[in-house]
């Protein structure tokens, strides 16, 4: 499913404009960009914002006693055109020669290309190996990396059909990565909180 279009791109990640206002993809969810024949890059959603399209125009309060929340958008239909939702994505892998690789792609995805939400099968296939969690943990994103990592694990666990075995594997992997930093490890594990 197409969810956005790339408006800024680089070696480690990209920024996309969401097709739906106020609804960026979930934090930590896996997305992909199809590039060329059979080529594809994978990324994890690391941040989302909604603000005025023109950086010079800040949003102002619109609510009244009668009109608030969703009704504001009906009373001010221009808002859907003057606001935009953006999300940032950290690159975590790609498909090269038909195989999934968990490292930064050789090229950043092209500007203006479509961003797709990954299907459950794609999430399952990509997250089978867990080397990419290192990229997430080391990423200098806007959200704390522990929260991002935990959000991704929650998302993937659900999309893999509440795969308990995978969750335990992921938790062990994270524990190994953070074995020298107990506080950070606990922050991640508390934030995962599976049902």
């Amino acid at each position, binding site marked *: 499913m197409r969810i956005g279009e790339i408006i800024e791109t680089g070696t480690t990640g990209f920024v996309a404009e969401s097709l739906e206002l106020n609804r960026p993809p979930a934090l930590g969810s896996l997305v992909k960009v199809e590039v060329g024949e059979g080529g594809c890059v994978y990324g994890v959603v690391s941040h989302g914002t909604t603000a005025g399209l023109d950086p010079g125009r800040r949003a102002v309060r619109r609510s009244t006693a009668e009109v608030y929340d969703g009704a504001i958008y*009906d009373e001010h239909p*221009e*808002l859907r055109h003057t606001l935009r939702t953006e999300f940032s994505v950290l690159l975590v892998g790609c498909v090269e020669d038909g195989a999934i690789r968990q490292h930064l792609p050789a090229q950043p995805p092209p500007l203006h290309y479509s961003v797709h939400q990954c299907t459950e099968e794609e999430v399952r296939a990509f997250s089978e190996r867990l080397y990419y969690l290192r990229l997430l943990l080391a990423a200098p994103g806007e959200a704390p990396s522990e929260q991002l990592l935990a959000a991704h694990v929650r998302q993937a666990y659900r999309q893999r059909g509440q795969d308990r075995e995978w969750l335990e594997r992921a938790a062990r992997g994270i524990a190994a990565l953070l074995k020298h930093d107990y506080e950070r490890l606990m922050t991640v594990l508390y934030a995962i909180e599976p049902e």
Partner: protein
Amino acid sequence: MGYNWLSGTRQRGTRNEEIGLPLKLGPISQQVDRMAASFVADEHRALLREARQLLHAVDAEELRAKVRDRREKYPWLVAIPVHTLSQTFSPPLPPADFSVVGSDGSSIHPDRHSPLRYYVINTSHAVLTYGRHPNADLDSEGQLYFEDDDLYVLSGQKSIPIEGERLGVKMQIAELQAALKAAQSATDPMVALRDGTLILWQLQNEEREVREEFLGQFLRCLDGFRAASVPVIGYISYPGSHDVANALRVSLCRDDPSDCEHCSLSEEQQVLCDFLSRAWDRQLFEELLEEGRRSDVFESTSDILKKYESHHIQFLYLNVGGEVVRIEAPQWVMRDGGMLDLVHALVCDQCQRSPDYPPYPPALQEAHEQAVITTAEGRLVEELVERSLAERGIVYARSAKDRSKRRRAV
């Protein structure tokens, strides 16, 4: 020695440029103080009160007769009250579903330092639909004009260049055309708003050919609105017009209005008349109009309107909350009770939806945002021209004066 605007002292070694102020503000700030003091002086307030009383006291019928009976033209622009001078009206409720069409424009003027002559007009529209199916359609359309027919109007042997005020008028026409086009796909009932006046007074002093060509296009556009039964209005924020104040001067005047030397009014009335010559209409209506209420309709007597035929422009004042604005519309809008009510209701509704205070209609705000040509975009057009010429082996040579302004070497 320079002036420190923060401490108000002169400092040795501080250059104005260093604090980004090439304008020496010292003397100006004292003058600003004097100006502000005179504006709020008791005398000013008392005269304004008297002027407002006069607005209530003057008999509209007598005033109309006085203006009509005078053979020569008044030396001032005088508004003629269509019904009354001081009656006010509360805003009707807007319909459940409606739309508002706003249009605006901006331009890149012909650059006399450039070897090529061209100009750009960027027009925009904002169609905002309210009610059960809220929607917004915001867009702009730019056009480069470079053919002889676009650049000049032929008048006998003369080629009159389209630039300055003439380009301004051409843009006003383009904005109105953009509004008419946008209105064709908007949902009824609707009102079309244009920022600024509908009175093309600049054409009065133009050559006949220029006037006829431009006015013809403008009036054909108004024909289009009337044929579609879409009320079209000019929205003037913070209007600087004096037409109604001048009408009050006419009511005071007992002599020849073009000969103030031999005035037979009492000294007090002469002071009032003098005050009215400088008072703005919006000041007269500020107290009279409560928020949302409008004045009665007035007819403008601008010379150019004699050529507007059935589209003669009338106007009214409306307190949109925090500001009295002037609304202009062709007489077929003002005379149609339903259309006039719709205009009143929708302008008030637009202003209630504005996040600003004083408010400004969102349809005009968004149209403006779409129309703006930024300095960077202007430069981009210039670069496109430059590149296109270079591809044909022509080096773009700007005038020496322009280059010196851009480089500013010392």
